[in-house]
């Protein structure tokens, strides 16, 4: 803040006596005044912060211990003191001094590592979401352009890729599966990625293959399916999130959907934990949970051996956010010949791929990509497959594979792809 932006009453009384270094009563010099006014902060910002609960509820109990900023995965790629610091942002919010022009507001992936350890129980990911919401709703501050583009594409086309809605329907047609009709056991909610991204499409195709093989009575919603809105909400666009939620909930109700499986942990999280606020009660499972259940029931069996060393990367929204650590591993363990090796940071300590919180739609500097660090960890284990169970993780790891500059024989695969491989073609 400069002196010009200070209120008149301070400018008015500015004199040598008021703002000088003094020594034995003599003024030695005038200080350049860069101090921040504490008792006259911007009321508009204060009100916005209070309105969204950022100042009063989500940041108030923070005691500045720095656990969040020490555990933040960004410390693995940068220790720039101007980088993301949840601790500093919480303190600024407590004082009503949030800097909305700062890029760091958009760096958080909402991976939840900080929340899992905060001794005061501050919901830091909610805090980040609320800050972004202020920026979006008040039109104030820095709002990254690529995120704006993704959001408007979701608003107008129902997907973040800027691709025509028709394309969603066309690819679904190629799958040769029934649309969901009343009375069916299960809805498979594909999500946006498989429709527009050829790499992730492979995962969805394999899940479908397995479901068909087992003889599960399932269908899809086709073009009635909209983006679940997870990243939309985390990116602060509450209004758009609500309209997407309503559109999906409408489609679920219209078709009599009771039980859903999803490709993405993000869709899973949203249906399971966020849609209930709109009064819907659905049975939601992630596909890894569903497959693990099928294995337990003896309906899904793997008879083809995969002689590979596999290490598994826990996605944030399956692990930390929803406590699902075992089911994906159960699938891997039941594949004959497959050896599961753990990375040192696994389970609750898993390192985010960098794709959550809307970051998947933003460019991340090459040297700040968390997947690069994680890929190194995976290579260190001696594994030849890094298994994932989230479209964001898959996409980010495939990107990193292209840039890693050391000898390795590692591949990135979704658990569904490994499972499909272990089922012999008949």
């Amino acid at each position, binding site marked *: 803040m400069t002196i010009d932006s200070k209120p008149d009453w301070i400018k008015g009384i500015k004199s040598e006596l008021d703002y000088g270094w003094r020594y034995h009563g003599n003024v030695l010099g005038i200080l350049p005044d860069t101090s921040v006014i504490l008792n006259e902060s911007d009321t508009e910002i204060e009100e916005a912060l209070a309105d969204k609960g950022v100042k009063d509820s989500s940041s108030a109990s923070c*005691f*500045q*211990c*720095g*656990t*969040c*900023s*020490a*555990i*933040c995965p960004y*410390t693995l790629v940068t*220790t720039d*003191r101007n980088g993301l*610091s949840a*601790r*500093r942002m919480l303190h600024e919010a407590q004082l009503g001094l949030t800097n909305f022009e700062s890029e760091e507001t958009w760096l958080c992936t909402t991976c939840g590592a900080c929340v899992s*350890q*905060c*001794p*005061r*129980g501050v919901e830091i990911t909610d805090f980040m979401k609320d800050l972004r919401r202020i920026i979006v709703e008040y039109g104030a501050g820095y709002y990254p352009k690529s995120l704006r583009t993704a959001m408007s594409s979701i608003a107008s086309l129902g997907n973040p890729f800027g691709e025509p809605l028709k394309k969603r329907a066309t690819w679904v047609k190629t799958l040769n599966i029934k649309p969901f009709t009343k009375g069916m056991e299960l809805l498979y909610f594909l999500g946006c990625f498989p429709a527009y991204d050829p790499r992730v499409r492979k995962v969805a195709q394999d899940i479908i293959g397995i479901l068909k093989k087992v003889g599960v009575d399932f269908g899809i919603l086709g073009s009635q399916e909209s983006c679940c809105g997870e990243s939309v909400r985390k990116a602060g666009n509450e209004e758009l999130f609500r309209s997407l939620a309503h559109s999906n909930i409408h489609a679920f109700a219209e078709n009599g959907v009771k039980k859903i499986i999803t490709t993405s942990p993000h869709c899973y999280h949203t249906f399971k934990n966020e849609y209930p606020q709109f009064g819907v009660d659905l049975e939601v499972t992630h596909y890894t949970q569903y497959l693990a259940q099928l294995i337990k029931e003896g309906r899904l069996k793997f008879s083809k051996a995969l002689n590979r060393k596999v290490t598994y990367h826990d996605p944030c929204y399956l692990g930390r956010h929803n406590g699902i650590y075992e089911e994906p591993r159960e699938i891997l363990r039941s594949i004959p010949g497959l050896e599961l090796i753990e990375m*040192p940071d696994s389970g609750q*300590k898993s390192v985010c791929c960098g794709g959550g919180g809307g970051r998947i739609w933003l460019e991340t500097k090459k040297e700040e990509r968390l997947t690069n660090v994680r890929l190194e960890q995976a290579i260190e284990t001696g594994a030849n497959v890094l298994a994932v169970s989230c479209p964001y993780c898959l996409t980010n790891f495939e990107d990193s594979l292209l840039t890693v500059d050391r000898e390795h024989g590692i591949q990135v695969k979704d658990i569904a792809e490994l499972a499909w491989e272990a089922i012999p073609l008949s």
Partner: protein
Amino acid sequence: MSRKVIILGGGVAGMQAAIALNDLGTESILVEKEPELGGRVKNYDKIFPFFQSGKELVKDLEKRVRGAHLVEIKLGTTVTHVEGQPPHFQVRLDTGNYEISAGAIVVATGFEPFDASLQEEYGYGIYQNVITATELESLLDPEGPTNGELRRPSDGKIAQRIAIVFCVGSRNEKLGHNYCSRICCSFSTKQAIEIKKKYPDARIVCFYIDIRTYGRGFEEMYRQAQEAGVNYIRGRVAECGVLPNGDITIRVEDTFLGKPMQGVFDLVSLSHGMTPCLDAPKIATMLGIRLAEDGFFDCMDKELYANDATEDGIFLAGAAIGMKPIPDCIADSNAVAARVAAFFAKMPKETE
């Protein structure tokens, strides 16, 4: 009515309560579940802030309590049953098949160190060189397992780089301990000075959230530590890890510099906080008194009657009502003796 007082707990608070009651001419029975007197303090070679011997302090108190002719000591004994209204309590012990008539009961049951393995991110119980402050205390004790040498558990190497992590298990909503354990900043600082005295070249870093050296002589001791070269970094350690050679890595943010940091240490000591003694709920039920939200015994009135339990005739001393340094425990016991005397004085004089 009986004017005998039953004291639960033979630590410093219980012993001093018996001594003070004796001085006032009141009989008491000091009941201690362990086979010897002295509670936690008998294991401390040095106590803060004046580096006196805890063992000597206990010996001194024990000599005085044993010399007090109105005090009966029952070791290896617990109170199993209490009934009746004050001042007509009937108390049963597990060592005799008879009832004792008591006019008042003093609870001086102390504390239990927090189980550091519950704070999983620090790896206590998994990483050998992550130890608790209590274990550090015994390593620094010339009569301890290492004869006072700071040998780390994994390979017996003398630790040269030591991290002391404050507020372990305290001030933590996740673990249900929202309170500050009050003495950890000070005993940790005392330990840092002891290490520095023995190993002047050791690098010691204390990681803290706030420094609370509030008592008489505590702040001076903090300054002494800094002047001896102990580093204090304001940041709560987020997690510990282990290297193949047993060294411990820690992740923390120096919140003053706004800089995330990683450090490698030979030994990490967790300054665990304290919880109420494990029997507290059982004792509270037996006596019909309440525990407060923090799990320690509740008081009749937190300002005016901090040493009175929530029922008449039952009094509280020492760490049973929240963590405090030794002098405060002694002061509590003296206060309790006065409260007991006042309670008896208020009772109608009846023929006994």
